[in-house]
Each structure stands twice: as C-alpha cells, then as structure tokens.
C-alpha cells in the first residue's frame, strides 16, 4: 500500500489537534474581548472576531498548501527563503507602512504583511540547513560566528524597524544550539547570572524567593540525577505553604505573603537538612549553600540598585525592565491587565461576563493582551488550562523533533518549539506583570492575520518535514 507514504497518514495529528484547539480558543476569546450588545453574531465580519475567522480559514488553507509541498523543497531552498526575507526586511524600511511607531508592514490592497513574522521561520530554516551540513562542527569558534551572523542580520533589521520585541525572539535560538551540542555550562552560568540579576530587580522578594526555591529544587534534581526527589520536594514545599496559608487564614493572623513564604522556607530547610543527615545526602549542603548565595546576590543587587546607582541610571534600567510603576502612565496597561486577570478568581466570571476587558479597560485586549480575557472570564482554571495546552504543544514538538531521522528536521523542530516558547512565556508573563511589556503576540490566540499565518506556516513546515521523517534530509 501507498498508505505509509501518505502525508495524511504520517501527519502528527496530536499537534494538529492542539493547534486547532488553541486557534479556536483564541477566536472565542477575541469574540469575548470585543463583544458588545450591538454586535452579537460571532460571524459578523465587520468585527474583529469575524475577521479572525477569515484569517483562521485562510490559515488552514495555507497549512494545507504547506503540507502539499515536497519536504525537500525546504532543505533545497532554505537559504533562498532566508535571502528573500532579508531583502524584504530591508525593503520594508524604505517602502513600508508605519503602524504604532514601527515601520514593519507591507500593505497589499487591505492585507497587511509583516516580514518580521516571515523572518522567524526563514531564519529557522537557514539555521537548520547550516547546522545540519555534514562538515559543520558546532563547537568551533568559526561555527559560532556563522550562526550569530545568521541570527543577527534579521534581528538588527527588525530593531531598525523599531520593533525590539520581535527582534528579541531571535535570542531564543541559543536553546536550539544547546540541543545541538553547544557547551552547556557556558549557557547555564551566563544565563543564570543574567537571570538572577534581572529577576532581582524585576520581581519583588516574594516572587523571587519562590523562584529561587524552585530553581534550587531543580538543581538538586540535576545533581542527584533524580526526577523523583525534586518532585517530592516541590510537593512538600507547596503543601507546607498551602497549610500555613490555611492556618493563617483560619486563625486570622493576617500574615503577609512574604511572611508566609519565609516560614515555609524555614520549615522546609529544616526538613531538607534532616533528610541530608539521615540519608547521608551530601548534595543537600550544596543546594542550601546555593540558595543562601542566590538570596544574598539578589539582596545585594537590590542594595546596589537603590543605594549605589545614580537616579538616571536607575531610570534607564527601570525603563528597560518596565519597572517604572506608574499606574496611570506607562504602567497603566500592565496594571489594568493584572486587575482583569486577578478579578477572574478561581473559575472566572464566565464567557462574555468579563467586565474589565469588555469595557476597554485593558488596551490591546484582542492582540497582545488577549490572555486577560482568558484570565478574567475563565479564571485560574481556564488560564492554567491554556498554559497547560501550550506546554503540551511544546513538549509534543520536542518529542516529535527528537524522533526525526534527519538533523535538519530536528533542528527546525526545536526552532519552532523555542520560538513558540518565547512568545508564550513573554506574552503571558507581561500580562501578569512578570515580564516587561514587549509587544509580541500570543501564538494562535492574538488577533491578526499576519502573525497567525506566520505561526501556522512555521508550525506546518515542521509537520510537513515530520511527515517524511524517514527520509534523511539535508
């Protein structure tokens, strides 16, 4: 039978299903976000949700088109696609249309196209092609330089368009390099130090402490080569916190969240020390030392920031980190977004019952801040479900990437996962005040044809490659 060679047979339907679910959820949330009594029909193409449906249908056609292309096309023309995209990025600087201060759009008779969106999969293709070359050895300095150039050219062109958010996405390819053999320790230590520094400034002590606790647990797991131990540790930690929170509520002690977490940490440190002593686990001491060391760094970074730096230096950092708390000015969006999500409670206000998003308190509510509608109308349960669906998709993509016979396909697959990951993490984090406001869309959710099509093409090229995973593509 020819069946085993059929695209439809080999297509990864799990990913397709997740894609369809997410696109559908995005669509009904756009409907909820801009819903008003005057325009109730979800099919009204005068409204954003009506248009989004058109984008979705068109996107599915695009996906089918991508699937009908021979997979060898992508390996053969990876560099060409990359080159054309670079030309478009240059061209848009001269003949593009300016929207919201970013000169990033081509307009062809009502349809807007953003070359920066194309650059994501084009760069991904080029990187996959480059790394999968037989003679390419990633640990060489020359190799690093080539890879950095491939990334930096589109990134810099996008920065010139005044769209820093989209440019930052390209940093995420380091994870792909890591998977392909880049020296892990360099990545790990560089990343940790930078992250700790930024997080110390960005998060309040409460969030940071939770973050460090989880990091410590994860590190413990790595050192012990165990998944079970950090999981148990996390369970105990969360259990203790919920118990203390419950006691505090029932007894009406009125402890601040910070006080609760300090008590939790202290109890768990004692438990961990006891575990270390009785089970002779030497790593316990290293982890406790690591935790204390990290806390010290975070406290001293804050001290340095507030007592050593000049005010204008602080301002600059605040602007970069989006830390200026100006609830009515620059911070207005985030504050309103947090109010919308926070007011959702556990199960949310119900479909179309959200008041914050519906009455336009949240700006950009159907594009960059679409997650607010999820949080407000579907509550913690709904928001967690959406985050969970995204995580499932990412894990599925990694799994599918790992089963590729061809390195090209695997690299491209990791690229897709990492690009999606960056968008999801940053977009959701900014709506809940965890990340500075960087104007990047939530994949499959945010309103807009250009980004939906770009993500669709990005994803379905990988699915096309996967459908011929038995071939060795280079």
């Amino acid at each position, binding site marked *: 039978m020819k069946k085993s060679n059929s695209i439809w047979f080999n297509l990864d339907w799990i990913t397709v299903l997740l894609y369809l679910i997410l696109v559908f959820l995005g669509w009904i949330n756009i409907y909820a976000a801009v819903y008003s009594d005057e325009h109730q029909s979800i099919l009204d193409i005068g409204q954003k949700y009506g248009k989004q449906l058109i984008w979705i249908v068109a996107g599915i056609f695009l996906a089918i088109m991508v699937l009908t292309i021979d997979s060898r096309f992508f390996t053969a023309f990876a560099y060409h696609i990359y080159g054309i995209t670079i030309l478009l990025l240059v061209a848009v600087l001269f003949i593009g249309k300016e929207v919201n201060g970013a000169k990033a759009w081509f307009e062809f008779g009502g349809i807007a196209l953003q070359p920066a969106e194309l650059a994501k999969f084009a760069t991904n293709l080029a990187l996959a092609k480059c790394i999968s070359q037989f003679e390419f050895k990633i640990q060489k300095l020359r190799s690093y330089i080539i890879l950095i150039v491939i990334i930096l050219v589109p990134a810099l062109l996008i920065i010139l368009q005044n769209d820093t958010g989209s440019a930052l996405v390209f940093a995420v390819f380091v994870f792909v390099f890591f998977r392909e053999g880049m020296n892990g320790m360099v990545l790990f230590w560089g990343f940790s130090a930078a992250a700790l520094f930024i997080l110390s400034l960005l998060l309040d002590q409460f969030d940071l402490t939770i*973050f460090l606790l*989880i990091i410590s647990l994860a590190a413990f797991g790595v050192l012990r080569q165990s998944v079970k131990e950090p999981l148990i540790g996390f369970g105990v930690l969360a259990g203790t916190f919920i118990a203390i929170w419950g006691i505090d509520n029932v007894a009406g002690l009125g402890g601040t969240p910070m006080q609760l977490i300090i008590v939790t940490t202290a109890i768990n440190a004692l438990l961990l020390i006891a575990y270390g002593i009785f089970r002779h686990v030497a790593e316990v001491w290293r982890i406790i030392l690591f935790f204390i060391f990290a806390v010290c760094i975070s406290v001293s970074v804050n001290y340095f920031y507030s007592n050593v730096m000049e005010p204008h230096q602080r301002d600059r950092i605040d602007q970069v980190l989006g830390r200026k708390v100006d609830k009515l000015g620059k911070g207005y969006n985030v504050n309103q977004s947090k109010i919308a999500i*926070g007011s959702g409670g556990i199960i949310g206000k119900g479909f179309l019952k959200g008041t*914050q998003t519906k009455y336009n308190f949240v700006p950009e509510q159907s594009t960059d801040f679409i997650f607010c509608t999820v949080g407000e109308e579907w509550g*913690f349960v709904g928001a967690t479900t959406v985050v969970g669906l995204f995580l499932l998709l990412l894990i599925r993509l*990694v799994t599918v990437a790992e089963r590729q016979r061809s390195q090209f396909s695997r690299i491209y697959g990791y690229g897709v996962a990492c690009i999606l990951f960056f968008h999801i*993490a940053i977009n959701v984090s900014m709506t809940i005040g965890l990340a500075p406001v960087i104007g990047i869309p939530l994949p499959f959710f945010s309103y807009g044809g250009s980004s939906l099509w770009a993500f669709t093409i990005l994803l379905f090229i990988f699915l096309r490659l996967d459908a011929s995973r038995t071939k060795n593509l280079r």
Partner: protein
Amino acid sequence: MDLFSKRKYLIIGLFSLVSLIIVIRLFYIQVIDSSYKISAASNVLRREINYPARGVIYDRNGKLLVFNQAAYDVLITPRELKSFDTLSFCHLVGVDKSELINEINKAKSYSRFKPSPIIKQLSSQMYAVLQEQLFKYPGFFIQARTLRQYPSKIAAHVLGYVGEVDQKIIDGNPYYENGDYIGRSGIEKIYEEQLRGVKGISYKMVDVHQIVKGSFENGRLDTAAVIGKNLVSTLNADLQSYGERLLSGKVGSIVAIEPSTGEILVLASSPTFDPGLFVGRERSKNFAKLLNDPYKPMLNRAVTSSYPPGSTFKLANALIGLQYGILQTVRFSCAGKGSSPIKCTHSHESPLPLISAIRESCNSFFWQAFKSEINHFAKPADGLVSFRKSLLEMGIGKKIGGDLFSETSGSIPSVAYYNKYYGAGGWNALTIRSLSIGQGEMLVTPLQLSNMVALIANRGYYISPHLVRGIQENNIALDSLHFEKHIVSAGAANYEMIVDGMEQVVENGTGRTTAKLDSLTVCGKTGTIQNPHGEAHSAFVAFAPKINPKIAIAVYIENGVWGAKYAAPIASLIIEKYLKGKIAPRRQHFEDAMINSDLISTMKIEHGD
C-alpha cells in the same frame, strides 16, 4: 547515535519551569490576592449620585425664608482633555488663566480618569453661554447643583448656612462623601437630616471612557433620591425684619417668644449679615471678612453671648422669695441698718412692699429679700444651693432651647465657686450680695431672659423655646414637633404679684415714658447693667398683653447706657408692631431714633470677650 539527546529533558524542563512560574503567579493574583477584585469593581462601576433638592424654610405665616436656586459646577476628566483655547474659556467662565491651570493640575493629580470639579457654582447666565460652547472643550462637563437663596436677607443667625463637608464630617458619618453639602450652623445644621433628604445612588457600568453601558445588576442596588422636607419656622418674618432694623447700628439682641407655645417669633442678633454671602463663588472671601470683623457679626449674641442680667433679674429673685413664702407681705426699707450696704439710687417712698419695689427697682429691697432667701436655711451654702436650684428650674443658667444652634448655658455661680475664693464657710449672703440685683458673677443669655418673662407671662410654666414648628413633605404637614413643658410652681397668686409689679413698671415706673402703649397693658422690667469696660448695658424684658399674653420679649443692648434708653423702646416697638400691626404716631419718633441711632461707630472695641 546522538550525544546530546538527553538535553531534550533540560529543554522540556525549562518549558515546564516557566509554565510552573506562570501558574504560581496566576494562583497568587487570582486566588490569594483579593485586591485586584476590588480594583476591578471600582474600574467598571460608576456611582452616580442624584442630589435631591434641599428642603425650603418658611416663616410661621408661609413666607419663604430660604429656597433653592440652580447653580452649575464645571468638571473635567483630565484623560479626555484635548488642548483648547484657554483664553476664550477663561473669558466664558470668568476666571483667570493661572487659576484655571492651577485647578486643572489639581484635578490631574487627583485622578486622570475620574472627574473633578474645577469651577464651582457657576451662575445660570454663565452656564447658558458655556453650554453652547462646551463642544469645543472635550473632557469638560457640567453638573447641576442647588444653592440656597434668601429672598429677604434676614435671620442669618437663625437659618445658618450650608457648606461643603470636610474630612472630619466624612470620617464621622458614612452618609457624606467628598463634594456633598451639609448644614453647618443654625436651622440648616440642627434640621440637616430633614432638610437634606436622601441622595439617590445608582450604579452604572461604564467603559474606560466613562461612557455608560447600562445599569449594574438591573439597578438592584440603586436607591432613589428622596427630596428634602420643608420646614415651617416659628419666626415671624416681618417682625424679625423689623427687629433687625431696630437693632441696626447697635451691638445687641432681641428674643421674642410666644409664651403659650415656646415658639420664637424673633431671634435677632446685631451686627448681622446677609446670609447670601455664604453662597456662591465669593463665599470664602466673604467668610474671611466676616470672621475678621471686630464686632463678630457671625456670633449669635441672642443665644451664645451671656451677660449679667442686672435689674431684670429682680423678677427671678422675687419669685424665689415668694416660693419661700417670705415676700408676700414684707416691706423693706431702703434706709437704715438692714439695707446696708446696698442703698437705693433714687428717692422714693420707703419702706416698700414687693409690687412697689419692682416698680421702683429698689436695689435695697431686693438685697434684703436675697438675704432673707439665703438665710432661710441654716447655712449660707444651703441657701445658695436652693437659690441656684430654683433659678435652674426657671431655665436660668442652663440650656433651655429645643432646637437652637450654638446655645450656651450662661452661669449661676455655685457653692463650690465661692468656696474656692473664700473657703467653705468663709462667705455669707453679704459676700455674694451682688447676685441679688443681677450683677457680679452671674451670666445669662438674652434667650434665658425672654424665657423667664414667658414663664411669668404663663404664670408657672414654659415650653422649651424653639425655632421650627412643623415639618412638611410635599406641602403636607407631617406631625408637628413637640417640645418639653417645664412647670415651675410658685402659686398663681404669687405670679400675679410679679405681673402686677411689672405692669406698674410700665404704667408708672422706669418704663413709663418709653414702653407704655395705648390701650394695651404691657408688663415689663428695665435693667441697667454696670459695665467696668464702658457705658452700662441696656436691658428690657416684657410681655403683653397682661391677660392672655401673646408675646414675651427680652432686648439687650451692649453699652446702651440705661434700660429705658434703647432696650425698652425697641421691645415696646416690637410688641406694638406685633399686637397692633402699626406704630402709633405719637411713638413714631422712637422708631426713627432706634433705626437711626449708631452706637457702633463711637464704641470702643472690647478685646478678649
């Protein structure tokens, strides 16, 4: 085959870790922290307040004393402001540019999203002009308010004024909030709850532009505004106005009471002011001016100031002696050993019985009466305790008003007071003799004096003097107000003796030239109060007619030289006007003299009073 395939776990771990952080954060802001829910409610709901019209106040004959007039506040929502022609706007509303900019900045610092008033109490004329031009000024809107209006500019002290609530009031009473108005003095304050009505509150769902999208929960939480109730005052507006005219140029007060009901007909304090000064945009300027006036026009002297009562007090002294049963038949000489040390100031037949002593206002008689009253008990202290108790029963030296704002109690010195100065047992009737003729440490308010006369006119009771007789809703009278009746039993015959004495004062005594009216028996008593700081004060108390009295009055003129000089003519003119409707031609010169006399410009200002 692949050296690094285990790294997929690290990458999956990273994805999971970030997801976990997001979920924990979501749990924190959605489940643990409730502050966002509160913010969300205030974001979406707009409380709209519907201010009911404040009740109006009538005089006892249905004449309007206070009514409402529309005024307009200009509000801005800073977020919606666009640049506009400030100069022409300032011209429209009559403010200068720096003031406008200052107000706009204040509004911005309060909130960029909530409206705040920047120009208050715009007149109807300005409103009419501004409304046509308003489309040029996005972010500006107008809110209607009502202002108090006073058709005859009288009774400023009685009516009081309305002002914006301050933080202290807001903290103390949950009904009020920023921008609300409240009665700050007088009837406006005492009857605040009836006058204000109940403001209505409706909750509207709004979007970020404050545009109303519908009512909240179908108006389940909305409350309707209840219009303020109207008050019928006890004042007689014409008589009040006449009293204020008679007081012009003098510092003093008039209190006239209808004895049978305790209703205050006139309550005038001079100098006074136009109650309309406290309304409108000049309000704070006017307020400061009145506050700094050395004659203290805002002080309601009729109920707040207390003075020595002088000879008018002899009536109370006599009543106590009659209650003890020691003055009915006794005669005291104004010469000889018993009279020492208080001698009579003028010559008359001697010794005198009580009625004649009242007519002659014989100091010597009333000192000896007082001595007998104090020595009626074993110890002087017991005598004073009983004397003071009797006075308090008569409503002298304590608050008696039913609904009076800023009333003070005056003071009758107690045993403790004298013990402090002279030591227990170190004093006797002689030491405190000046009380007998209403001088010395005793202080009473003009209100208490007029109430004392009402008690005598009623021959044995008084009703707490008050300013409001009824409350109306939609012009239908609600149940009328009840004020306490106080009985002071001293025997009807004894009251008649005092009444006869008072009749004698006007017929043949100190009041005969100034207070005697044709075919109407006025019963009165003069008082000339020694004043160490300047001219003596002039006091007169009276009621009329003798049988079935309709009016009891007290007039107190600071530095009025002697009782019959200002107080007696003023009191008698008011009685005449009230009971006869007009002033007899032969007495017209009194009216002219009173209205035109000016004591203030020649008066030395007393400080620290």
